């Protein structure tokens, strides 16, 4: 049974539909990405699944519990890392984690063990007794993710986990999320508007204007849109062009660096090219379509064309 089941979910704010009939399932152990521009309904959906927000119609079930009928049970099954920092700056890393353990009704002994264990995972053991206000943005993020995992949730929700971080910290946090899936086997549900992050998910749903417009594995999404582009340079480009046209029935385009041709599965096509082309190949370059291309193709706009939206409040 899928660990998250969402069917025909609708949420209105003052008569305006923010989420307009969203349906999807997330399997246990998956890293599931919610990709879309600001204001598309990502955070609204996550808040509904975390029982922080009511909804107007449809069903949402997390870990077998209905979000509307059994919110307490849903809250016990999930961990949540918010878009903005929600740590107490006046407390130490340890005290923030202890607060969380007690809110989740853990025994003192278990709490102490888990805190030490999780601090080691996020490389913050040495900063255990330091006030959080002295931490950098990346360290705070890691501590928040650690906190979200303390009570061993079945599903970890990450709302834009790398928002506002510098590229180096971003990749660090991201490596950690990927490692998590391997070591703990958690299901991870995350929202993002970074294309490269979405590509690292097992499956992604593309959401725009409160509706899911595609929900697939990233490579399949890309395959469905258009083929890969292969750039080659040969000893005699003119001769090679004629040869490719004749032998493969393709129409290579001459570009600055040589020839460019679009094929469906570029990785499988390259060996054939080497096998059957008589002119010597000097260089080969394969470009897979990006999710950015997918997004443009589905919506007709680039994801960065959207303006920022206001920060959600409880």
């Amino acid at each position, binding site marked *: 049974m899928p660990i998250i089941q969402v069917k025909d979910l609708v949420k209105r704010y003052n008569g305006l539909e923010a989420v307009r009939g969203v349906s999807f399932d997330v399997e246990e152990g998956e890293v599931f990405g919610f990709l879309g521009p600001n204001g598309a309904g990502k955070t609204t959906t996550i808040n509904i699944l*975390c*029982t*922080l*927000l*009511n909804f107007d119609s449809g069903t949402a079930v997390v870990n077998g519990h209905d979000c509307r009928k059994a919110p*307490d*049970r849903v*809250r*016990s099954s*999930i961990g*949540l890392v*918010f878009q*903005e*920092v*929600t*740590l*107490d*700056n*006046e*407390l130490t890393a340890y*005290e923030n984690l*202890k*607060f*969380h353990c*007690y*809110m*989740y*009704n*853990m025994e003192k002994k278990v709490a102490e063990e888990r805190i030490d264990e999780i601090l080691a995972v996020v490389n913050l053991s040495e900063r255990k007794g330091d006030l959080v206000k002295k931490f950098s943005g990346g360290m705070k993020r890691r501590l928040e993710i650690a*906190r979200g995992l303390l009570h061993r949730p079945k599903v970890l929700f990450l709302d834009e986990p790398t928002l506002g971080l510098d590229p180096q910290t971003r990749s660090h946090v991201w490596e950690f999320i990927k490692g998590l899936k391997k070591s703990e086997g958690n299901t991870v549900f995350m929202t993002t508007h970074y294309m490269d992050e979405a590509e690292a998910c097992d499956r992604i749903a593309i959401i725009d204007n409160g509706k899911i417009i595609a929900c697939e594995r990233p490579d399949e999404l890309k395959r469905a849109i258009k083929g890969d582009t292969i750039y080659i340079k040969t000893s005699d480009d003119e001769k090679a062009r004629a040869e490719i046209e004749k032998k493969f029935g393709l129409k290579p385009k001459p570009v600055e660096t040589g020839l460019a041709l679009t094929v469906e599965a570029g990785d499988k096509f390259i060996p054939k090219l080497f096998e059957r082309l008589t002119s010597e190949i000097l260089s080969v370059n394969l470009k897979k379509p990006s999710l950015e291309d997918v997004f443009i193709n589905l919506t007709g706009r680039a994801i960065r064309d959207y303006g920022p939206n206001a920060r959600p*409040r*409880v």
Partner: protein
Amino acid sequence: MLSYKAIYVITLREFKRFYRQKGRLVVTMARPLIWLFIVGSGFTRLIDTGAGVHYIQFILPGIVGMTILFSSIFSTISVVWDREFGFLREMLVAPVSRVTIVFGKLLSGTALSTAQGAALLIIAPFLGLGIGLDGFLITVFLMFLVALAITAFGLFIASFLASLEGFNVIMNFIVLPMFFLSGALYPVGTLPVWIRVFAYINPLCFGVDSFKHILLPGEGRLVAEFPLMVDIAFVGAFAALFTFLSALVFERRK
């Protein structure tokens, strides 16, 4: 329905935050002393109280009440603070009831205020008001009740406010009238009737009056104005009403 571990850790957090904010600690201790020894000494020379009570002695129950008032209201700012800085979401997403969170905030605010009031009470003997251990304990109980009433009231208001500026504006309109209409600086019986009406719905007025019963026993113009049982009943009912209301508001807000 209530998670005691959660209430404990919410309270613990507020105590740690209080202890770490040294500025708050200093202000808390300094404000009542300034009132007592500067304002109190000044007026003592000016005002002939007639009866055996000196003015500086008369205002001690009121200054204890003021300390509790400021401390309780200030502690409820943490709800607004937590909302503004996101920490409230960490609490709301935990598998505890909203009532648990309200009780945690209520208990921490009440306990902090009571502790500060009790600390101030230590100077009573130095002002010539010997109350003995039993008097001290009874006063601490009365302070707890007053602190509970005002914290619950503050919590109710704070749960509607989204920003710290809003909190400051609202609270200044509530805190100062509450203090001046509490009988702390002058008996409320001397006020014109239309103002006295507001004193009679002010929990601090009955609270301060209850302290006077213990701290200023005897006869005269400057002693308690209502029966002690009336004081306790009013403050208790006020505390119960606003505890209920703030739990209700918290439960409804999504």
